[in-house]
Each structure stands twice: as C-alpha cells, then as structure tokens.
C-alpha cells in the first residue's frame, strides 16, 4: 500500500504546498468576487460542498433540539420545557433530521462524487443542480425561521390529519411545516431527475451499468424512488394546504373527508423515504468495505439487484405504519408479508459485506470502522423492524419508545453512520487532505458508546409502556433509569459529533496532504487529483473493468488537458428562481388568493431569463 500512496501522492501534492484547502476555492479577485462566484456557481463540486455544509448546519440545530428533549426527559415530572415547546422540538427534530440533514447530506455526496465516479465533467443539468440547492437552503431556513416567531411546527413530522386542521392547529405552526416541506420536496424532485439523467447518459466510454461503483448504483435507485415518491407527498401536502388555506374538505370528517387518506398518502411516500435515507449509505459502505479489504465487492450483481429490489418492494409496505388504524385482516396480512419479504434483500447485502471482508487484507481506518459499524448497528435496527413487522406485535409497540429505538438504529445507526464513513473516505478527495485518524477513532468510539447508551435503553422504556411524543412521564412507570441512561448517552453522542466537526474543520488546514488516491481505492474518482480541477478529468477516461484503478497500468489523470475543456457558465438565475419559488409559497401564508401570484410572476420572469441565457458562453 505504501508505494501506492507514494506514487499517487506525487501527482497532486505540488499544487498544495503552502495552501489550506480553504484557499482552493478562493477567487483571487477578493471577497465580493468570491461570494459572487459561489452564488452563481454551477460546478457540481462546489454545489456538493454547499449541500454538505448546509446539512451540517442543520445537523447542529437538530442535535440541539434532541439534547433539549433529552434534558426534559432525564427525570420524571420534569418542567425544563413545557408541553408546547416539547411538541415543537420533536416535530422539528424529526423534520430537520430527515429532510434537512440526512437527505441533503446524501445529496452532497451524490453531487461531489457521482460525476467523478462515472468519469463525467459535471451533471447533466448543472444549472438545475444549483436550483435544487438554493431551493433546499431557502426552504430549510424558512422552516427554521418559525422558531423566531415562537411558532415552530408542532404536529409531529408525520403531521397526522386532522390534528393539522385549522380547527385543532389554528396557529401558523402547521403553515410553516406544510409550506416548508413542499419547497424542500421540489428541490429533491429536481435533483432526482438530474441524477437519473446524469447516471444514464454521462457515463464514460466502457463504463457499462454493471461496472458502476455501488455508490453510483444506489444513487440511481434512490433517485428513482425520489422521482416517484415525491409527487405523492406533494399531493398530500397540496390537500393539507388547501384544507388550511382555502377551506377544502379533504381531511374534514364532518364533510365526508377521511383523515386516514392522509396516512396512506403520507406513508406511500414515507416508507420509500426510509429507503431514500438508507440506500445512499448502503452504497457508500459498498465502496468503502472493498477498498479497505483490498478485495472486489463480493457478489457485485447480487448487491446491485438487492438494491433495486429494495427500491421496488419499498413501495409495497407502507401500511405497516398503519396497523393500528384498523385496515382489516386482509390488508394487514398483505403488509405483514411484504414487510418481512423486504428484509431478505437487506439481509443479502449484510452477507455480501461480510463476504467481502472475509479473507481480505483489512485496514481499520476510521472510514472502515464506520462502515463495519453500519453493518453491526443496522442489523440491530433491522431485527427490531422484523419484530414489529408482525401486526399483533406492532399493536403493542406502536407509538412507544420501542419504535423510537428502532428507527434511530436504522436512520442514525444506518444512514448517518454510512454518511460518516463517506466523510472520512472522500474528505481527502474534496480537500486534498486527510482527516485526522486519531480524532476520527475518538469520534468513532465515543459515537458507538453514546449512540448505544442513548437508544438501546429506549427499547426497554418502550416495552414498559412509555409512549413517544409525550413531554414527561410519572416515576411510577418505572422507566426513569432508562431515561437517565438515554440522556447521558445523548450528551456523549453530542460530544462525539463535536469531535467530528472539529476534525472536519481542523483537517482542512492541518491534515496530511492526501494525493490522488490515498486509500488505493478502485473507482474513477481516485484517478484525478485531490481536489479535482474544475473540469474533473483532463481526458474522459476509458473504462474496461469494475475496478479501473486496480487494473494493471491504471493511469492517473494528472496532466494538464491539451485544451481547456469548455465548462458550463455560472448563472445568477438558479438562485433567483429559487427565491421566486420560495416567495410564491411563503406568500400563500397571507391567505389572500392573488398575493402568491406576485411571487409566481417573478418566478416566471426568472425562468424566462434563465431559458434565454445560453448554458455555455464562449
């Protein structure tokens, strides 16, 4: 390995002498020009960095919300925050962590890594890519601005009808939620279409579908789920918004509306959504584990097909969230069966990862530790999932802390842990410097201790009868010890996340220069320098195997291009269009039918300006 690092290191170190990574994207013409170049950028790498930074910012907010809840629940009958604040905290914690952290963090990796993995110079629609980011950022900020008005959403992240009706939620809280989520959904949909097109169409010559790195494959599957699931939640949100703003009757029982319809629409989106969260991380560790096992992925086609199968079956399990709503024995039986079936492709992947490690020459870098951590922790979450796949068992566990334990084991222990692995793995590609392994290992072990101490006791608290979304509990319930353990664990978890942030920032300046392929990894993103030039590759690579960088005579793409590749031009219209779209939606809050039309007219002007601006200027 050492020779590989040395040979790769020579190719890019020259550029890095004396520069921090932060300097890499600094425009020499001064601060104003630098800011302008970022807000008009259409470079997938810069957009990826912005997505990642914004997601980390929202992670901080979501984390603080979690800690406040844990303080409140540390002891029985606590009055640290009241019931109303607690409602806002758990609603915003769920909404933030799913829509503003886990999803955009995965999208940050889609953006930065996928074009590099497929040997492309950018995504298919660079300006739409910028639009996705700005819509997401403004939507996220808008959603959180509700705290400034003391009116953060408070009807939980699933926002069941008809708690969300104007009758039961008269304040602007739910308005913020329904508008904020609609905005963020638009961003995801545009991104999904962009990545589907990119992965189908911009692959380098010879890079057939069955040679794609697993991360790109899972990005592809995830994008399909997004493209098909987002419109369903969009319709649900439209109904809710129409009920609240225009007085329709979609979820009004007295007029014949059915609140259960909300649950169906929400979970038809909501269950595919959990695969949207987990599949990118499955993709990341399917790239990380082979690299640090020095072995090709065991059973590559099976892992690909298992991912596709999860994408399909994920559409047929949504009602297992609704066993308690009285669907009847036939529907219940169907969804019990389909839920148990979807565990099979997921289990298959677990064995493939173990099979990859088996007999490999393992190197336990921090990235590898998190990847293996995912395999272990996610399995725990998967097993508790199988438990409440059974309808009778679910009736006991529904809306209890057992469920909270389950989905944190899958979403934090699965999705987040995979994203952590991705950060340690690709950080050197993005900044040209390695993250500190010492701090990384501190992060990993404090995370493992803090995470399990937080969420494992919740299984017991739930089984002993502690309901979720309730701001306190009596001492007689006998769950005080479990709750105190969870609170202590949460603070250890918070501390470990702080170590991660310190590592991220510090390594930017103090990290060891990485070189093009510090891990001796097999896929194309490691063939270009770290960080890559703005055109990614001097020459579009020709691919002849699944592990091009492991092939004999693999070349580093480190020379200057014969002629400067023509890249898409920066544009101001994506950010302005995003502002217009946000404004249109936010003006709906006025409840005057013609006011949003002002935003709509503005958006139309921006879209026309965009359409008539050529994507490439010479």
């Amino acid at each position, binding site marked *: 390995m050492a020779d590989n690092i040395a040979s790769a290191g020579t190719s890019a170190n020259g550029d890095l002498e004396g520069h921090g990574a932060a300097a890499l994207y600094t425009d020499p013409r001064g601060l104003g020009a630098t800011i302008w170049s970022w807000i008009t950028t259409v470079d997938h790498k810069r957009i990826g960095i912005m997505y990642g930074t914004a997601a980390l910012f929202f992670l901080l907010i979501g984390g603080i919300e979690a800690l406040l809840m844990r303080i409140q629940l540390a002891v029985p009958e606590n009055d640290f925050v009241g019931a109303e604040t607690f409602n806002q905290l758990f609603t915003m914690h769920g909404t933030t962590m799913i829509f503003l952290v886990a999803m955009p963090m995965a999208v940050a990796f889609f953006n930065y890594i996928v074009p590099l993995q497929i040997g492309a*110079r950018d995504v*298919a*629609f660079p300006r739409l890519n910028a639009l996705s980011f700005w819509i997401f950022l403004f939507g996220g900020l808008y959603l959180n601005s509700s705290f400034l008005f003391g009116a953060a959403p408070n009807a939980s992240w699933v926002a069941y009808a008809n708690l969300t009706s104007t009758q039961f939620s008269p304040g602007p809280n739910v308005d913020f939620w329904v508008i904020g989520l609609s905005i963020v959904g638009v961003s995801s*949909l545009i991104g*999904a*279409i*962009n990545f*589907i*097109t990119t992965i*189908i*169409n*911009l*692959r380098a*010559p010879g*890079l057939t579908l069955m040679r794609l790195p697993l991360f790109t494959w899972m990005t592809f599957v995830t994008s399909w789920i997004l*493209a*098909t*699931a*987002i*419109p*369903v939640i*969009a*319709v*649900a949100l*439209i*109904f809710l918004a*129409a009920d609240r703003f*225009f*007085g*329709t*009757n*979609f979820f009004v029982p*007295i*007029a*014949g*509306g*059915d609140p259960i*319809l909300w649950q169906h*629409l929400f979970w*038809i989106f909501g269950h595919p959504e959990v695969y949207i969260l987990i599949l990118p991380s499955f993709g990341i560790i399917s790239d990380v584990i082979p690299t640090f096992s020095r072995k090709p992925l065991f059973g590559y086609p099976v892992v690909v097909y298992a991912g596709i199968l999860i994408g399909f079956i994920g559409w047929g399990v949504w009602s297992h969230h609704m066993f308690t709503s009285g669907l009847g024995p036939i529907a219940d039986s169907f969804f019990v069966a389909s839920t148990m079936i979807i565990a099979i492709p997921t289990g298959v992947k677990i064995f493939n990862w173990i099979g990859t490690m088996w007999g490999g020459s393992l190197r336990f870098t921090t990235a590898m530790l998190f990847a293996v951590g995912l395999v272990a922790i996610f399995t725990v979450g998967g097993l508790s999932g199988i438990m409440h796949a059974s309808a009778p068992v679910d009736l006991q566990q529904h809306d209890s802390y057992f469920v909270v334990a389950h989905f944190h084991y899958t979403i934090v222990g699965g999705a987040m842990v995979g994203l952590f692995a991705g950060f340690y793995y690709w950080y050197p590609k993005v900044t040209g410097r390695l993250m500190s392994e010492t701090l990384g290992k501190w992060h990993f072990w404090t995370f493992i201790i803090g995470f399990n101490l937080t969420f494992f006791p919740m299984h017991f608290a739930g089984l002993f009868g502690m309901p979720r979304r309730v701001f306190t509990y009596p001492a007689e319930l006998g769950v005080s010890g479990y709750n105190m353990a969870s609170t202590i664990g949460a603070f250890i978890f918070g501390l470990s996340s702080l170590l991660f942030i310190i590592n991220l920032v510090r390594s930017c300046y103090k990290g060891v220069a990485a070189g093009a392929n510090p891990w001796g990894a097999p896929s194309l993103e490691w063939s270009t320098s770290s960080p890559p030039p703005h055109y990614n590759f001097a020459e*579009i690579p020709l691919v002849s195997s699944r592990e091009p960088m492991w092939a004999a005579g693999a070349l580093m793409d480190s020379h200057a291009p014969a002629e400067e590749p*023509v890249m898409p031009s920066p544009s101001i219209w994506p950010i302005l269009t995003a502002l217009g779209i946000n404004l249109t939606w936010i003006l709906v809050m006025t409840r005057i039918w013609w006011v949003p039309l002002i935003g709509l007219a503005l958006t139309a002007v921006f879209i*026309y300006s965009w359409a008539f601006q*050529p*994507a*490439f200027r010479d």
Partner: protein
Amino acid sequence: MAIAHHPPTATGLDNVKLGFWTFIGSETLFFGSLISTYMVYKGASVAGPYPHDVLNIPLTSVSTFVLLMSSLAMVLALNAVQAGSRSGALVWLMAVVILGLGFLGFQAYEFTHFVHEGLTIKTNVFGSSFFVLTGFHGAHVSVGVLWLLTLWIQTLRGKIGKEDTLKVEIAGLYWHFVDVVWIVIFTLVYLIP
C-alpha cells in the same frame, strides 16, 4: 452553438429528452394520486351538489374533442419544424395555442357555472377533489400554452429552425402527456356514472 460542446451521451439520447421523460414519469404519480383521491372520495360527500347534478357530459365532450385536436395540431407542428417549413410551424403552433386556450375557456365556463350552481371548492369533498384535480390539470395546460406561445414567437423571429426540432419535440411530449391525463380524467370523472 451550445449543443456542440456536449460530449456524446452514453446512450445517444439527448439529456433534456431523457430528463423530461423522467419528469413525465414523476408527473404520472402526481396525477395518479390526485385521480385516486377523487375516486376514493366518490360518493363520500354528505351534502350536494353531487357529480350528476352538475357535470355536463355533452359540453365536456366538446372541450375534450378540442383538446384532442390540439394534439393532432402538435404532431403537425413538429412535422412542419422537422421539414423546415417555417410557415407550417407558425400555423400549427398557433393552432395548438388557440385550441389549448379554447379548452381553458370551456374549463373557465364550467367552473363559474358550477359556482353558480352552488358547488365551490369548499362545498363538499366532491367539490374539493374535483376542483383541485381539474384545476391542476388546467394549470398544466396553461403552462403548455405559454410554452408553445414562446416557441411560436421564437419561430416568428427566426430563432427556431430545423436544427431546433428537439425544442418543439419536448414541448410536444409535455402537451401530449397533459392530453392523455385529460382522457383519464374525462373517463373516470365524467363518463363513469
């Protein structure tokens, strides 16, 4: 010309065309959810007016015919652009725009008529699901009309020629899709008693 800078795609398909097909796939789920809701809420209203009190099948048959003819005009418009006939493109693009506006006119009449009959978006679940479904379809038609009008102006100014066939083709994809959605709506909402 911008197109020359694009490296050839892996499939040979144009990026915009492929992306647009994906978008249409997404739109089917959007209209699928709206139409399913209408069907689920059929007969759920607790107060009138009910569908058979207000829906005017003969009138809507005419507006459906107008919209279907606009699809024919769209095919002829694309054909004219492909053949390099500027005058043909101008005639048929304008025909699509006028027929599309005609359909929207019928819809505006229908909506105001229903309001006079006492059916608004707030009246009952029929009103809510009907107006939101057909309203979103109408909004799609309106976007299509604006889009085609833009193409017509561009053609008039000589900015769209034979080499820009794809621009017209993609607008056509959208227009035909919106038409197909209407056929489903017309069948399920109007024709099935």
